[in-house]
């Protein structure tokens, strides 16, 4: 499992709708904003790259020092962004695919408004379990 990993889902209008620190290290207070900064900045690259490929998984697209940003873009241009420090492309890809499935299930919920914050605790526990499994 990666020591540092921050998973975030960004809606198509650039609003983070789900955030989770899934690394094994204890969450540091000052790291939260750094992670957001890195992921936020990485979107500049995502917006270019997303149109160059038909694959949803964009691999590692950006890095900051030893932190790497991997991105998965759904068909609706919701972006799953993972900031991590370990190189495990296959694991990350599986992670993204499973989270995508979860996300679709969330979307199917008639009470969930697409683009709004995902507050489901079930979703949260599932994502964390997947992170433990794959990252």
């Amino acid at each position, binding site marked *: 499992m990666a020591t540092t990993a921050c998973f975030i889902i960004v809606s198509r209008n650039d609003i983070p709708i789900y955030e989770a620190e899934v690394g094994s290290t204890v969450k540091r207070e000052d790291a*939260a904003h750094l992670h957001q900064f*890195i992921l*936020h900045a*990485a979107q500049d690259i995502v917006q270019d790259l997303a149109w160059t490929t038909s694959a949803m998984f964009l691999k590692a697209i950006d890095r900051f020092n030893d932190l790497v940003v991997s991105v998965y873009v759904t068909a609706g241009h919701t972006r799953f962004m993972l900031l991590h420090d370990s190189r495990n492309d296959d694991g990350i890809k599986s992670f993204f695919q499973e989270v995508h499935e979860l996300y679709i299930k969330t979307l199917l919920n008639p009470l969930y408004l697409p683009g709004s914050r995902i507050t489901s605790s079930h979703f949260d526990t599932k994502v964390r379990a997947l992170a433990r499994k794959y990252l």
Partner: protein
Amino acid sequence: MDPANTPLGRMLLDEISPVVMVLTTPLVDEACQKNGLSFIEMLSPFCVFNNIDVPVRTASDQPYRLQKFKLRLFYASDIRQPDLQVTKERLKEVITKAGEEESLNLHLDAPQPDDLLSRSESEVLPSWFKFFNKELIRTLSFSDHEAFDHPVVCLLVVSSKDDQPVNRFVDLFNTDQLPSLLNDGAMDPKIHKLYLLLHDNQDAPPEKATKFLSEMKSTFGANALQLLCINSSRDGLVEHLENPWTLYKSDALSTHSLGRFLNKDDVNEIKDLTQDLASKHVIPSMEEKVRVLNQQVSATRKGFRNQIKNLWWRKGKEESLDASNGPTYTFSSTESQIRVLGDYAFMLRDYELALSNYRLISTDYKLDKAWKRYAGVQEMMGVTYFMLNHSRKEAEYCMENAFNTYLKNVPAGHQNATRCGLWWIEMLKARDQYKEAASVYFHISGEESLHSAVMLEQASYCYLYSKPPMLRKYGFHLVLSGNQYKKCDQIKHAIRTYQRAISVFKGTTWSYIKDHVHFHVGQWYAFLGLYDAAVVHMLEVLMCAHQSKTTQELFLKNFLHFVQKAGKACEVLKLPLPIINASSLKVVFEDHRTYASPAAIGVRESLWRSFEEEVIPSLPTARTNWLEVQSKPISRKRKESNVCIVGEAIQVDVEFKNPLQISIPLTNVSLICELFERSDEAQTDASTSSELQNNEHINLTAERLMNFDKSSFALSDVDCTLESGSTTMVKLTVTPREEGILNIVGVKWRLSGSVVGCYNFLTTTMKKTATRKKKQKRSFTDNLKFEVIKSLPKLEGLIHTLPEKVYAGELRHLTLELSNMSEAAVKNLKMKISHPRFLNIGKAEHLKVKYPTCLEKRTDGEQTGSLAQPIEGSDSVFHFPNDIVVRKDSPLSWPLWFHAAVPGNISLYIVLYYEIEDAESFMKYRTLRMFYNLEVLPAIDVSFQISPLPSTLQKFLVRMDVASRTSLEDFQIHQLSSLGSQWEISLIDTLFHPPLLMSAQAFTCFLMLKRCEKPKGSDEVSSLTPCIGGDVKLSPNDDGESLYDISLSPLSDFHNCERLHQEKPSQGDSDTVDFVLISRRVHSESGSGVSYSPCLLSNHACHCSISSSSPISWAVEGPREIHHNFSASFCEVSLRMTLYNSSDAVASLRVNTLDSNQSGFLLSDSSAVLPTNQEGWYNVSLESEIKVTSDVRGTILNSLSSESIRPIIWSGSSSTKLQLEPSSTVQIPLQVCIFCPGTYDLSNYVVQWNLQWPIDQGNEETRPNSGTCPGYPYYITVLPSS
């Protein structure tokens, strides 16, 4: 694109140019200092030649012409590697100075990214970036692995004042004073020398100098010696139009005084000198050197043989190498010479030649693992490719290669990497590859904070200018850079970068980013003492529910601290903390509707309306009609706004929400209001409507309101503490003191005792479609606008001693107290109660009575006179007597009776209507709304089961089951009363008394109900009038308490209500009976929470049906005990059966007597089955249970029945058939013959009945049409008479 015209090209031409080493005597400098310049500074402006036009011939035979050229002059003492520390200090100074200038712009808003993009790059970038980069590059000059800083020519300058100038020239070029680089062999010490004699015209006429010159010419040769005369101007007042020196003097203190002694001739002379220097000395010597070196290199290295040899030689050398640095190369080594050749060729713009040499040498250095030199050569190759303007890829590859080699393989190669990176960046920028350039900037940022800050900031601008603009990266790098600036105390720069970043992140939902940026900028502003700006930024981070508790505390603490520091009683508008839930806003005011308690306010308006409908006069009559002209215009206006009354508070409920994890104290929470005289109304209407159109005005209004004259109304001040994550409803009131128009504008509060925040209801709610529960049609703002009218009397009502919890059945005596606080009196009181079943209005004389004794039956038989009159309808309005007027000092008390009819939660609504005596007032009437919520606990359950007594038709057996439903209280059953004229009730066993009803217990008792003979002509007497025998005392003994008279007012009133509520359909009046069970609570110290008072509990059971399941009842009458002499004959007994048809239809009956085996049991002991007065009721079923006593006398049942000898047979007709009219009786005779003594049960007959309904009533399936009833047990004992 001409590479030479790109920024990189210009930079390279500038920096990579021939170096002239200058050696001077002190007197030379002295002469120059008169102009405020050093010798080099004096010459520098004239060392740049834009159109020198010199033919150059290098390796090839084809000459070409140089147009632009530049010389760099250095003192010999400066020809060494610059001190890094000094450079750093200087850079820091520059940046600090730039920061100071920046402070002027701190207050301005940062330019928007779009703004920046529309402007050109050079405008946006701070000018000191260029300087900073240049200085960084210069820190690397005179490094030992590069040759372009090697001095080409040495200029020796001696003043004409020096004695023996010739000797001075010799001394100057003493090896001791020469730079170490020349001495240790890195540079070629054999330099072309040029001698210059400087003459100061102020000291002596030029003739002296020419004399020296001619002397020296013989020594040094004519070409190598020059004369320069300066300071020709004697008064020192030469004004240069464009002072050429300002650019070269870094710390220009007095730029206009520079070169004040140099007149035009002097300047021209200097120009000639430098031109001469360049074209006649520098270029030719370089040409020569290039040619010489080229020949050497060709001889040793070019050609196949040389290459093989070279490779072989290097391989052999490999083992002895010092791995880290590679071999040291002196100027005479072949490698160094190739490098020099390349650099010279580069400086002479023969890029092809330079490139071929760089290529050649780079492989050598690589093989030698001389990484620094290798990287240096790669770097130059990249630059040369660029200048040649072909093969981009090659150029970039070389730069990258050099860059990485510097970083990885060269110890302390960071400086070199920086320069390489800067060149590389310029190269990328020249090709519009901003994104790549940014990442290079990022890589060269390094550890040193100031350096990295500048680099990161430059990186951010690269992102901004990349296509398409990468704004998020731009913001991120600005923040990174600002962070670094902060680390090296460049606060102002930090703020500048963050400010620009904020413009990118504006409106972001990335919470941590927003908090970080605003918090830091806020802190830095505070650090600079700009607390106002700090507060503005801290406001942004107050809503930080996502942060941890400590962070939230930190934010809030800082904010409060800054606010305090900012001085002034800071009125912060739009304070985001706490959150105000605008939709929860609730306004409670009293116009003609007044409320007795807050609970009454919470009741739905529609509910009150429905209650009030009957009480208040209908609207058109109460309001104006068209004839009342004088009040019409006012009322129309008033219709538009709510009405409130001077001196009566308007309450506004505002919901505050604290999203943080820390509790926040709020003090001085109050409303913001404005009150206008009525004449101002039109004007203010206009002004408010215009104010609503722009927010700025509203802020102004709010500020104006803060200082509004507060004498005309009173505001309540509330202090509260909002716990973490909690929502608190705060009730605020405003009480107008004058008539006029009152506007409730907003709410303000003081946070943590220091910051005042306010919230404007109008601005926020205007956007929403305002709906409030009271008036849907009106907009929200109208609900906050009140017409204040002059004071009116207002009744305040209170019901004394109304308990919150009571037991079901409790009957209590209450007092309603109405008081009037104002001078004016009120009259015409009316009252309506929602549940007359629970609450009954008493009579005036009830006020002073002693309860419960007042309800006791008078033994003297004299009626109290308050016999209940049946009330007209359950929901009618009670009119107080007309003469009742409530004045100020005379509160009105009125008795009320409360009866807790059924368990559960009961909401009692009471509406009191009153009219105002003062006829001139705007409002004719007002209503007082009272609301009480009670909890009625279950206490006693009583149920009655009535079955006709088999023996008689007029008597009924009443089984009363009494159960206690509470576990906390004991009850004493006092009395049971039956209502109705024709009923009389009595205990079956007069000695039986029901025990004290303990908690959660039950008992059963049996009573006898007897139908009285109906007196003739009393049919029209109401059934409510009880006859004398209607009460049974059930209390244990004669404790002096008499029976209660249930016909007295409250009891009978409540009973009527109960009757109405318990009414069942299709019940004949004569077939039902009402019971009232009166009991009392035994006082105990229980914790039930129900206050004890000596009161009665009355349970009403109405409409208890006396009819059995069959519509036909009958009774068999006859002797019970007969003495007969059986020896004479058998015994013949005559019986009489009376049949009664209780149904509405004609019944055809058939009575069959049966003589079958199954019936007619002989019972051994008659006493065993006789009904006793034992407690408890058992359904005696003879078929299943036969009580046989121990002393069996005579026969056994089984044997007897098997014998089938029946000692008893029916005689007479075995089947009688007859018709019976509704509600009529008929008697038929029966006869039975008994053959031997014993006790017999004569139940072996069957009554079959068949009802013949009239046709129009028929087909009701609920009623049985026919049936068969077995006979009742009838015991007859026949004893032998002997």
